[in-house]
C-alpha cells in the first residue's frame, strides 16, 4: 500500500516539475494533458488507498526520511493515510483532476499555459503534503506550500496590477496567521517534546488546561488565516482575481478548507478544550452570517461565490467547534464538490462573457449555455441545501448538531444564514441565466464551453447530486478516529419539524430570489434608493473592512516604514555615528588654530603648559602641606 501512498503524493510533484520545464516556452498542449494524467494517477492511487481504509485496513504510516533533527527535536518526512487524510486526499485529487482537465480548455489561449500547470500541480503536491503529513512540521510545509502556490496562481496574470496586489495580500495575510500556527507548533514541541500527531496527542491529556488552551488558540489562528475567517477574510474575495479554475480548486474546494482540516486533525486536542471549541463555533457561525450578508448585494459573480465559500467555511468551523468533527469533514467534502462545480460553471460564463463578472450585465444565458445553466442550478441547489442534493445532508447535520448540543443561538444564526445562502445563490443564477439578455448592450457573443470541459465537470455534477448517500459509510469510516457520534434529535417530531421547516424556509428564499431577479432588465447604475441605503452601502463595501485595513494598517505601516528610514535610520541612528565622527573631525579642524605657525605662540603654549603644571603642582602641594587644616576647615563646613 505504501507504493500507492508515494504515487499519490509524488505524481503531482512530477507533474509540476515536468510542466515547469516548459514555463518559459510557448504553449504546449501536452503539458496540460500529461499533468492531468499524472494528477489522475494520483487520484487513482488515492482511491485505492480509500478502498483499503474502507475495507478496514490499518492506517498506513510511513517515514520517508529525517528532515530536521537537532537537540531533542526530531522531525521526519512522515506520512500517514488514515480515515481523515484519505478523505482529504480523495477530495483534493478528485477536484484537482477535474480542474486540470477543465483548465486545458479554460487556459487555451493563455500564453502562460505551461506555467499554469506547473503551479497548479505544485499546489496539488503541497496540498497532499498538508493532508498526508503525520506531524505538524510537515503540515506546515504543505501549509506554506499551498500559500506559495496560491500566491503564484492568484497573481498568475502578473501584468494585472490588481491581481498581483491580491496575491501579495493573500500571501501576507496568510503569513500573519502562519505566525500563530508556528507559535502553536512551538508550544506543542516544548510541552510534549514532539511534533508527531500521535505522540503529541497521547501526551496532551497530561498537560494543564491553560497550556492546551494556548495551543488550541494559536493553532486555530493558523487555521483562521488559511480558511479566511474573520478578521483575516478579506484576501479571499480579492483572490478572485486569479484564473477561475484556481478559484475552484484552491479557494473553494481545497486550500481554504485546510483550516478545517487542521481543527479536525487536532480533534483530540480540541475535545480537551471545549471553551476554545465554543469560540471556534461562534466565530464560524458569525462568519457564516457575515459572509452571506456580503454576498447578498455583491455585483461580482466570483466574489459572490467566494463569500458563499466563506460562509460555508463558517459552517464547517461551527461544526468542528462543537465537536462534530466528522460533520465538518463531511460538509467539507460535499462543499468541495458543489462549490467547485459552481466555480467552474462561473468560469464557463466568464469565458463566454469575455471575462465580464457583473451578473447584472448578463441575463438570459440559459439559451446559449444550457449545460452550464443546469450545472450551476444544481450546484446552487446543493449549496442551498435542498433535498436530495449533497448540501442537504451535510448542512442539515450541522444544524442538527448545533441543536442537539443546545447551542440555539448558533443554530438560529446558521438557520438564518441558510436562507440567505439560498437567496444569494439563486439571485446569481437568476441574474445570469434568466431574464433579458442584457449582455447584448455590450456587444458580447457568448458561447458554450468546450465539450470536454463540460464532461470533465460532470463527475462533480453527479457528486453534487448524490454525495448525500455517502453519509453513512463515511460516518462508519471515520468514527474510529474521530470522536464521532451521530446527532439524532431524540424527539422524532422535533426532527421532522426542523427538517421540513428548514426546507421550506430555504425554498421560500429561492423563490423570492427568482421572483426578484429572474425578470431583471436593467443594469443598476447606483441611483436607485436601495443602492443608496445605509445597509446596502455597508454590505456592498464589505462593512468597510478593507477600507479600514487600508487606512489604519497598511497606510500607517507604509508611512511608518518611510519614517523609520528617512527619519530614524538616516537622521538619528546614522546621523549619530556620523555626528561622532563629525565631532572628532570638527574638533580637529577648529583646534588646529593652536598650531598657528607663529613661534611666539608656540613658546607661549610651552610656557602655558608649564604654568598649568605648576598650578596643579602648587595646588596639590599646598593641599598636601595644609591637609590637616583643610580637613578641619571642611569638617567645619560639614562636608
Amino acid at each position, binding site marked *: 500500500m505504501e507504493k500507492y501512498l508515494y504515487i499519490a503524493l509524488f505524481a503531482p510533484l512530477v507533474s509540476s516539475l515536468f510542466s515547469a520545464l516548459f514555463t518559459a516556452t510557448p504553449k504546449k498542449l501536452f503539458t496540460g494533458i500529461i499533468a492531468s494524467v499524472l494528477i489522475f494517477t494520483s487520484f487513482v492511487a488515492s482511491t485505492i488507498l480509500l478502498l483499503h481504509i474502507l475495507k478496514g485496513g490499518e492506517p498506513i504510516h510511513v517515514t520517508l526520511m529525517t528532515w530536521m533533527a537537532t537537540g531533542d527535536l526530531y522531525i521526519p518526512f512522515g506520512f500517514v493515510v488514515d480515515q481523515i487524510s484519505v478523505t482529504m486526499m480523495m477530495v483534493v485529487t478528485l477536484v484537482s483532476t477535474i480542474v486540470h482537465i477543465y483548465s486545458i480548455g479554460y487556459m487555451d489561449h493563455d500564453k502562460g499555459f505551461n506555467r499554469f500547470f506547473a503551479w497548479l500541480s505544485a499546489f496539488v503536491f503541497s496540498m497532499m503534503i498538508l493532508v498526508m503529513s503525520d506531524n505538524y512540521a510537515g503540515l506546515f510545509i504543505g501549509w506554506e506550500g499551498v500559500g506559495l502556490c496560491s500566491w503564484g496562481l492568484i497573481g498568475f496574470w502578473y501584468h494585472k496590477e490588481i491581481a498581483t496586489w491580491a496575491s501579495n495580500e493573500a500571501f501576507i495575510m496568510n503569513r500573519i496567521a502562519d505566525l500563530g500556527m508556528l507559535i502553536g507548533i512551538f508550544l506543542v514541541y516544548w510541552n510534549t517534546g514532539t511534533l508527531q500527531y500521535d505522540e503529541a496527542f497521547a501526551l496532551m491529556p497530561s498537560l494543564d488546561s491553560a497550556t492546551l488552551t494556548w495551543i488550541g488558540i494559536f493553532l486555530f489562528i493558523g487555521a483562521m488565516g488559511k480558511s479566511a475567517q474573520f478578521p483575516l477574510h478579506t484576501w479571499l474575495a480579492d483572490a478572485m482575481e486569479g484564473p477561475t479554475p484556481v478559484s475552484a480548486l484552491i479557494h473553494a474546494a481545497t486550500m481554504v478548507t485546510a483550516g478545517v482540516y487542521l481543527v479536525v486533525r487536532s480533534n483530540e486536542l480540541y475535545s480537551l478544550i471545549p471553551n476554545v471549541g465554543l469560540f471556534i463555533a461562534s466565530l464560524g457561525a458569525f462568519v457564516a452570517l457575515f459572509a452571506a450578508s456580503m454576498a447578498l448585494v455583491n455585483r461580482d459573480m466570483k466574489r459572490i461565490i467566494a463569500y458563499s465559500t466563506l460562509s460555508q467555511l463558517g459552517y464547517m468551523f461551527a461544526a468542528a467547534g462543537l465537536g462534530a468533527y466528522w460533520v465538518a469533514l463531511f460538509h467539507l467534502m460535499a462543499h468541495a464538490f458543489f462549490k467547485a462545480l459552481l466555480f467552474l460553471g462561473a468560469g464557463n460564463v466568464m469565458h463566454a462573457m469575455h471575462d465580464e463578472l457583473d451578473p447584472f450585465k448578463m441575463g438570459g444565458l440559459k439559451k446559449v449555455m444550457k449545460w452550464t445553466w443546469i450545472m450551476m442550478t444544481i450546484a446552487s441547489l446543493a449549496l442551498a441545501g435542498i433535498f436530495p442534493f449533497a448540501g442537504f445532508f451535510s448542512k442539515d447535520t450541522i444544524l442538527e448538531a448545533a441543536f442537539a448540543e443546545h447551542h440555539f443561538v448558533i443554530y438560529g444564526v446558521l438557520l438564518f444564514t441558510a436562507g440567505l445562502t439560498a437567496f444569494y445563490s439563486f439571485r446569481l443564477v437568476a441574474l445570469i441565466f434568466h431574464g433579458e439578455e442584457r449582455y447584448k448592450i455590450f456587444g458580447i457573443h457568448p458561447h458554450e464551453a468546450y465539450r470536454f470541459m463540460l464532461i470533465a465537470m460532470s463527475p462533480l455534477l453527479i457528486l453534487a447530486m448524490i454525495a448525500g448517500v455517502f453519509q453513512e459509510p463515511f460516518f462508519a469510516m471515520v468514527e474510529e478516529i474521530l470522536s464521532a457520534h451521530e446527532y439524532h434529535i431524540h424527539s422524532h417530531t422535533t426532527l421532522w419539524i426542523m427538517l421540513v421547516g428548514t426546507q421550506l424556509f430555504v425554498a421560500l428564499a429561492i423563490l423570492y430570489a427568482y421572483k426578484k431577479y429572474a425578470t431583471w432588465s436593467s443594469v443598476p447604475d447606483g441611483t436607485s434608493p436601495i443602492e443608496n441605503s445605509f445597509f446596502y452601502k455597508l454590505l456592498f463595501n464589505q462593512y468597510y473592512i478593507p477600507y479600514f485595513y487600508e487606512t489604519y494598517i497598511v497606510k500607517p505601516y507604509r508611512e511608518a516604514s518611510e519614517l523609520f528610514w528617512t527619519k530614524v535610520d538616516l537622521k538619528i541612528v546614522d546621523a549619530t555615528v556620523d555626528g561622532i565622527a563629525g565631532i572628532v573631525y570638527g574638533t580637529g579642524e577648529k583646534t588646529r588654530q593652536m598650531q598657528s605657525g607663529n613661534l*611666539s*605662540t608656540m613658546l*607661549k603654549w610651552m*610656557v*602655558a603648559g*608649564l*604654568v598649568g603644571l*605648576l*598650578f596643579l*603642582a*602648587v595646588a596639590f*602641594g*599646598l593641599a598636601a*602641606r595644609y591637609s590637616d587644616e583643610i580637613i578641619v576647615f571642611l569638617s567645619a563646613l560639614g562636608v
Partner: protein
Amino acid sequence: MFEAIAFYLFAFLTIVMFFITVTTSQALYALSALAAGMIFISAFFFILGADFLGAVQIIVYTGAVMALYAFGMMFFDSTREVKEKQGNKYIIVGLSTLAAILVVVIFSAPMVSDKIVALYPAIDGVGNTQEVGLVLFTKYLVPFEVAAIMLLVAMVAGIVLAGKKMDLSITLMSDSEIEEQKNKKVLS
C-alpha cells in the same frame, strides 16, 4: 650683614638689568643691559664662594657671548630701534607672573629635608678653582669631554651654517642647474 646688603643690591641690579633686556626696544640697550646683568650675576658667584664660576661667567659671557651677540647685532643691522608687534600682553605678563608666584610660593617655604650629605664637599683651605678642577677631572671627566664634543659640534655647525656654501641651495636646483653652477666653480 654685608652679605645681605650685597645680595639685595645685586638682586635689585640684576632684576633691573634683565628687565631692561626683555623690555627695551633699543637693541643696543638690551645688549648692554644683558652684559651688565651677567656681570652682576658673577658677583653672586663671588659672594657664594664660587670664584671659578664667577671668572668663567665673566669670561664666557661678557667676553665671548657678548662679543658674538654684538657681532650678530651689527650683522643684522638691529642696532637701531627694533619694532615688535605685540600680541596680547596680558597673556605674557599673566603667564610669567603666575609662574613666578607659583614657584615663589613654594620656594619661600624652608625645605624640610636637612639631611643632605655633600657628595663632593668643599675642602677647607683649598682654593675653589682647585676644588673644581679636582671634581671636574675625576667625576665629571666624561661630561667635560662630551661638552668638548658639543663645542666642536657648535663650531662645525656655526661654520657650516654661516658659510658661503649655504648661499646657493642644491636642494632647490635641478640637476642641470647644479652642473651649470659647478662649471662656474661657485660650488666646490
